[in-house]
């Protein structure tokens, strides 16, 4: 039995966890759900010893562990974690990666022993997996890598495993393999091993969990037997973020501004005659499950594919990233320079950039989009995540680009910010800008004039007007699931 009490974690100015209490019983599968940024991954890192809690205590099998609880300790106590981003070394083989988590696999014949160990486990969890012990991880497909990592977490050498944490384990597995995993989870919990399962697929959670804990804003807001939940009550517990009805209805009031066609693109491999079109003044949504080719489609438009001459004027397309740190923020710069980077040409007189003009632009957008900062010369990293995201919006909307590409930009952004930004998107569209908006949040599709649902890199359904409903989008998201698997 494992128990956490009063766990807090602070990153700089951000309180990621604010007092989490949680018990995990032996031999149970605990489902853990919550929105992005609710603190699930942080909590699991603390449990696995890869992050240290700022406050609070942790008890594993009667061992009280406070500060200084580290990975080695976790390993000794039989806690294993499959992290969201893979923890395999791509340059090593399957057997060699197994050796990394097992210090006892050494000496003469370790390769054979490691190979046998991992292959036995793979056979048990994923029968028919098609992986061999001497395969180099980098050469394997992403789903096979994930299978190896999961199987590795269940391998046993000198210490028994007590708890395995699976953080979004099925994100890159197809449904058949995912079922194999869920079946295996049932089997090991029967043998007394505890499993924590984190997943965005509520069906999975409801199917295998004994109990379900719901996290929101850095704390556990509900924790009950799985039987007491259904899909609807789970979503309610997670806290639906945007109040429906706040969205301006598309159609009637906005169609007056829709003008020339700017984008006409067919995803490569599209089997039917559906294609992505967007006109001036339109907000076009990309929907579907995460990672079905929406971002790739946006990037290919960014590179100019499918952009008609009418859309290629001025500075062409601008891009608003969802993954701020990787795709958006220029970390050493002030807010002003971060906003100005996409509009540099317009701010020149002669050869030189006029910082007054840049300042003007930044000040204007700080005001308009409500960036909460003392002034625009403050470093961008001093802002909270939501405000950094607003800076990226200001950068894109402040540029002269006619086409705005949005790659799920509201990830981990608070409700207030979202509503402010939605209003501005509508305003900008009515002034003739074209928006392509990939979103994973159903409510945001209410702002779209037309929605393309993606599945396996192609458009599986085009929805317009009143056809844009949660049921239709979900239906289309899983359209070819039986055929693909």
């Amino acid at each position, binding site marked *: 039995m494992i128990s956490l009490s009063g766990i807090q974690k602070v*990153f*700089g100015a951000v309180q990621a966890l604010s007092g989490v209490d949680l018990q995990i019983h032996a031999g149970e599968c605990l489902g853990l759900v919550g929105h992005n940024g609710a603190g699930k991954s942080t909590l699991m890192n603390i449990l696995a010893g890869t992050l240290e809690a700022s406050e609070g205590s942790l008890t594993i099998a009667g061992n009280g562990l406070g500060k200084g609880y580290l990975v080695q300790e976790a390993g000794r106590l039989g806690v294993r974690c499959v992290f969201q981003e893979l923890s395999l070394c791509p340059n090593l083989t399957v057997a060699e990666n197994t050796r990394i988590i097992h210090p006892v696999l050494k000496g003469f014949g370790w390769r054979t022993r490691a190979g046998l160990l991992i292959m036995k486990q793979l056979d048990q969890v994923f029968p028919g997996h098609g992986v061999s012990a001497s395969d180099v991880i980098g050469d394997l497909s992403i789903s096979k890598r994930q299978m190896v990592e999961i199987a590795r977490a269940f391998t046993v050498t000198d210490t028994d495993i007590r708890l395995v944490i699976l953080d979004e384990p099925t994100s890159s597995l197809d449904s058949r393999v995912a079922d194999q995993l869920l079946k295996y989870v049932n089997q090991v919990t029967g043998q007394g091993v505890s499993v924590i399962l984190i997943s965005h697929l509520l069906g999975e959670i409801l199917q295998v969990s004994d109990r379900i804990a719901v996290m929101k804003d850095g704390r556990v807001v509900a924790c009950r037997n799985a039987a007491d939940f259904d899909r609807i009550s789970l979503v309610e517990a997670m806290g639906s973020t945007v109040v429906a009805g706040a969205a301006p209805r598309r159609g009637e009031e906005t169609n007056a501004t829709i003008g020339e066609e700017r984008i006409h693109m067919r995803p490569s491999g599209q089997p039917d005659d559906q294609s992505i079109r967007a006109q001036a003044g339109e907000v076009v949504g990309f929907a579907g499950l995460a990672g079905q080719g929406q971002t790739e489609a946006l990037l290919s438009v*960014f590179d100019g594919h499918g952009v008609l001459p009418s859309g290629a004027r001025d*500075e*062409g397309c*601008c*891009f608003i*990233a969802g993954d701020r*740190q*990787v*795709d*958006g*923020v*220029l*970390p*050493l*710069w002030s807010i002003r*320079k971060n906003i*100005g*980077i*996409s509009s*540099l*040409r317009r701010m*020149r007189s002669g*050869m*030189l*950039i006029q910082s007054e003009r840049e300042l003007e632009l930044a000040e204007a957008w700080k005001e308009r989009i409500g960036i909460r900062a003392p002034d625009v010369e403050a470093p961008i990293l001093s802002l909270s995540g939501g405000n950094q995201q607003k800076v990226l919006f200001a*950068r894109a909307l402040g*540029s002269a*680009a006619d086409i705005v590409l949005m790659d799920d930009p509201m990830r981990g952004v608070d409700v207030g910010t979202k509503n402010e930004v939605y209003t501005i998107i509508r305003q900008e569209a009515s002034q003739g800008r074209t928006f392509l908006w990939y979103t994973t949040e159903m409510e945001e599709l209410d702002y779209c004039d037309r929605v393309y649902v993606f599945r396996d890199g192609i458009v599986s359904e085009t929805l317009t007007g009143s056809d844009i409903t949660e049921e239709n989008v979900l239906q289309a998201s899983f359209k070819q699931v039986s055929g693909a698997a």
Partner: protein
Amino acid sequence: MRSIETFMRHHPWSWSFVAAFLTWAATAAYISGTGGLALASTALSFSTFFVMVGIGQMFVITLGPGNVDLSIPSTITLSAVVSMMVMDGSNAMILPGFLAAILVGILVGLFNYSLIRVLSIPPIIATMSSSFLVQSSAIALGRGVKIKPPAALEWVATAKLTGVPVLSLGVIALAVCMAILLNRTVYGRSVTAFGQNTRAAGLAGVPIERIRYLTYSLSAVLAAICGVFLAGFSGGSSLNMGEEYLLASIAVVVIGGSSIAGGNSNVPGIFGSALFLFLLVAMLNTFGAAAGLRLILTGLIIVGVVTFAGGRTENR
């Protein structure tokens, strides 16, 4: 006092000037009399060459981790050899010689960039491979021929106006232009954005490939120009004249307070650290330290500076 402190913290390049001044003061006090002024003048002369290549290297380093131009020394040598051959000691041929040297720079830059782009290899490997070829060309062209530079070029490279080297005035002007280029132009901003987060810069509309190409060309062209003046300064080209500039060009950038992780650079620091490096050697010479000791101190200073300046900023 407080305001000086904050100034220095916000302008990391100021350290290099303080260090340069202190070493100069120590040496000048030791030799006493007017020797100090002469020393300052010599330091200005010698540091000009470091500054020229340092600026090019600085733009390259600003592009971020893995971006270093290792072909600078060989470019210096090749351009010196080529320009001396074209000029052939005649004042009238100075301009064509210069153009030939710049052409060498442009070609080397283009070659470096093509290797990076076409073979998709890290810039450091690309510039290293091309430096092998460039160095070889210089050796093959320049072996056995020792051509004196034209008198006018020699004058420009060595003359002093009331103790101030003419060439150093030119280099100060160059540095001012380059500082403006870095801070006030679209190109400079783009380079700085590139080095902070290449992917984000690309998605914000920075033309990544064009910036990379321009930067490697700029570095090569500056090295080529340096080669011409160096040949003028030292009475002709020699086959190992570029050698010391490989490490020195990187050293002046780092000591000057530019971030080796990219995205945060400055021009004045290059000037300060070039002066400092020369004066340090001069000081140790005056104090009678052995050559080895000078090298060791230089090395320790580089390691010390980068240790205290810290490495990659931790992005959360």
